[in-house]
């Protein structure tokens, strides 16, 4: 009894954007269906419509010729659609049995929980799935991939018709991925529709049968994996990308401002060496989990490193020290502005001055006039759209919040600025403004290091790109000689 999940004319509108535009696709059971697309392509939105987290604006979802009437996750579960999310939903302090059967532990006559039956149920389930983990293990003691397995076992314990896997390998090491795939392949025999979302293209050939590609909210096509090459897939994902040109008046001097020598942080990155010249914009390209954010944080002194050294403006730095780096003129705008870059409840003005607090308080007390000048110059230069800087920064749009993060650091008059994902979650217009700010800094002789998941942005903004894979630098490229597809291929390991 094979089953089929169909999407008919699915449209999803969010305020200001069309996330999905007339999607028609069907997925049959007994196969693994990959669903791919770059950030903002709509793949997550489509997945969320299947899982019941979002309702489509138009169109319908049909499972085995039965229309899905309601869009909420509990209802989807009851119809046999189970989801394994990227952020695991397990409770680390409980055992495997308690986690899998949470809320559903069998009860003995008299109302007491039947732990024996519960454990046996789970043991049987794990055996069927060939997962070798004890039902009594504490989930918090398991490794990441084992938790991922338990999460899948939990989903399978509902005997779903559809299993949605959202980036299941994003935090797994290579050998762990292999074990996970073994399980996924065995699930196919259970006649389940498996939809597999991933940005790791190389893995798809090992596990998927078909691949559905979305771009800018539209269905580009559904292809058989065996008949498709890597470059076919990349072409489908990216299409013709128009890359706005970096201004050509940017000059790089020969003076080295920052030199990193054999920097190593165990299990994060190793033997990283590079030089940064005055006024240069250097990109670091790598996939999620390649160690790029960790590297930036260690250079900045926010996280430790175990060996190697950093030579910054003639000073030899041998251990991480954020306050010293800041004094020497380094700045970092963090990747997660809400949790790392801003104090959301605090006024916009305060948020523009936290990093430069020392300069504003020559004798411990705040120099109000100077503070006003610091706030005004950033609001003006960065074109932060704000009526009143005493409003909480949480009132601003994402793009303007990002400018506040940048302004906070520009107020320290840095000589090197590290931008970690400066364009994350902001609209195209704000992105362009942020890039202009980076170029403007370069003109002033400030050096920049930029990391972005959006590889085309690195090509657009940077003068030189270092490629990072699994904690190591594997190559260096010049953007002008490169297409987006090539860069993507390099980052995935096809160098």
């Amino acid at each position, binding site marked *: 009894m094979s089953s089929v999940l169909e999407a008919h004319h699915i449209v999803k509108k969010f305020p200001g954007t069309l996330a999905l535009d007339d999607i028609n696709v069907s997925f049959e059971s007994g196969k693994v269906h990959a669903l791919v697309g770059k950030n903002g392509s709509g793949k997550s939105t489509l997945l969320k419509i299947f899982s019941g987290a979002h309702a489509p604006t138009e169109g319908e979802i049909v499972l085995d010729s039965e229309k899905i009437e309601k869009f909420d996750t509990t209802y989807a579960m009851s119809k046999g659609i189970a989801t394994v999310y990227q952020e695991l939903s397990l409770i680390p302090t409980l055992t495997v049995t308690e986690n899998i059967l949470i809320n559903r532990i069998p009860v003995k006559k008299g109302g007491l929980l039947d732990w024996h039956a519960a454990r046996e149920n789970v043991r049987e389930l794990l055996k069927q799935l060939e997962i070798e983990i004890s039902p009594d293990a504490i989930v918090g003691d398991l490794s990441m991939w084992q938790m991922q397995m338990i999460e899948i076992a939990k989903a399978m314990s509902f005997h779903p018709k559809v299993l949605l896997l959202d980036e299941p390998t994003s935090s797994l090491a290579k050998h762990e991925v292999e074990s996970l795939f073994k399980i996924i392949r065995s699930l196919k025999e259970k006649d389940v529709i498996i939809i597999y979302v991933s940005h790791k293209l190389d893995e798809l050939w090992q596990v998927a049968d078909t691949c559905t590609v979305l771009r800018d909210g539209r269905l580009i096509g559904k292809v058989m994996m065996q008949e498709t090459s890597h470059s076919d897939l990349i072409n489908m994902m990216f299409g013709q990308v128009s890359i706005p040109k970096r201004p050509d008046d940017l000059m790089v001097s020969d003076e080295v401002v920052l030199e990193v020598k054999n920097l190593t942080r165990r299990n994060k990155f190793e033997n990283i060496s590079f030089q940064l010249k005055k006024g240069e914009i250097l990109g670091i390209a790598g996939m999620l989990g390649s160690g790029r954010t960790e590297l930036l944080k260690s250079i900045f002194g926010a996280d430790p490193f175990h060996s190697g050294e950093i030579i910054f403006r003639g000073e030899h730095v041998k251990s991480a020290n954020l306050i010293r780096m800041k004094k020497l003129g380094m700045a970092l705008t963090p990747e997660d502005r809400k949790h790392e870059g801003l*104090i959301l409840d605090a006024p916009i003005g305060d948020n523009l001055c936290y990093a430069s607090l020392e300069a504003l308080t020559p004798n411990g007390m705040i120099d109000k006039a100077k503070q006003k000048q610091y706030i005004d110059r950033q609001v003006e230069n960065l074109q932060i759209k704000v009526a009143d800087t005493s409003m909480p920064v949480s009132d601003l749009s994402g793009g303007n919040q990002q400018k506040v993060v940048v302004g906070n650091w520009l107020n320290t008059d840095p000589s090197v600025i590290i931008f970690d994902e400066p364009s994350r979650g902001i609209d195209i217009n704000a992105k362009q403004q942020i890039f202009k700010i980076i170029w403007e800094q370069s003109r002033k002789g400030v050096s920049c290091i930029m990391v972005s998941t959006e590889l085309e942005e690195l090509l657009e903004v940077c003068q030189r790109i270092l490629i990072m894979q699994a904690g190591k630098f594997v190559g260096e490229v010049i953007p002008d000689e490169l297409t987006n597809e090539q860069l993507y291929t390099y980052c995935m390991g096809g160098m």
Partner: protein
Amino acid sequence: MDAQAKTKINAPAILSKHMLEIILILLFIIMAITSDAFIKPGNLLNILRNVSMTGIIAFGMTFVIIAGEIDLSVGSTVALSGVITALTAGKLSEAGIMPMESAVVLGMILAVIVSIGIGLFNGFLLTKFKMPSFIITLGMLNLLYGVAAVISSGFPVTTLPSWYSVFGAGSIGGILPVPAVFLVAVFIIVLIILKYSRFGRAVYAVGGNPESARLSGINVNKVKTSVMMIVQACCAISGILLSSQVMSGTFSFGRGWEMTAISAVIIGGASLAGGRGTASGTFLGLLFLGIINNAMTLNGVDEYVQYIVQGALIIGAVLINSFQNKKKD
């Protein structure tokens, strides 16, 4: 804070923002009408005197709570400070090392140093071992109570020179109670530090989002340790004032004061989650608690009923707070 001061006039918003002030004014008017004794200057100054010792601690606590921490041990430090002062005065004068008059000064200095040391220790456990301040200071609450009892052998220590009573029981010009003067002085200092100093700005940042603060180059551990030391220093001042008022250092003083101090800060609009709170809010919270107590006493409300009212008030204040925050989301 002046965060919303410039937004356009909006009656419900003003009402909800200044709820505490409005309730306080209404309360004041009702009391003034219904009770002749209430409005007398002597009574009003009395209210101030009554809240002054817990109030000084509340101002220290304001730093701690804005920084996202808590100190439950404050009451025990109050007792310990009084005991240390009186014991030092007694022992040194008995041994003939110095007259009691000067020994008591040494005792006061010692009490302040020990208290700041306790704060340093609390801050050390907090920042070095990442222990929750709630647990550390819960332990210290009992530990210090025990220390105060042991060193005073469980008896009130009354070896204090007669002039010493000026701090707790004296008044300036026969009108202004000295503890109230201390309270106002501490209020003004805390107000200035929180609003206009680098340290104050750092305290808000650390409480609002420690990771953002750290990545902005603010020394989070130093700020947290400092606030733990400040509140303990406030306890020493408060303990000296109390021992002076009753002319004795007694180990059982200050029991339950953490409750009053924390209440005042929370009623004043601070958030236990950190990042929010003001000196003037705490001052209003203190006045609020003081007036309610005074009103109940004047109207002969049973002491135990007063506990019920106080407890309900704190819950009510936090409830209003959570409504205000919800509206923002």
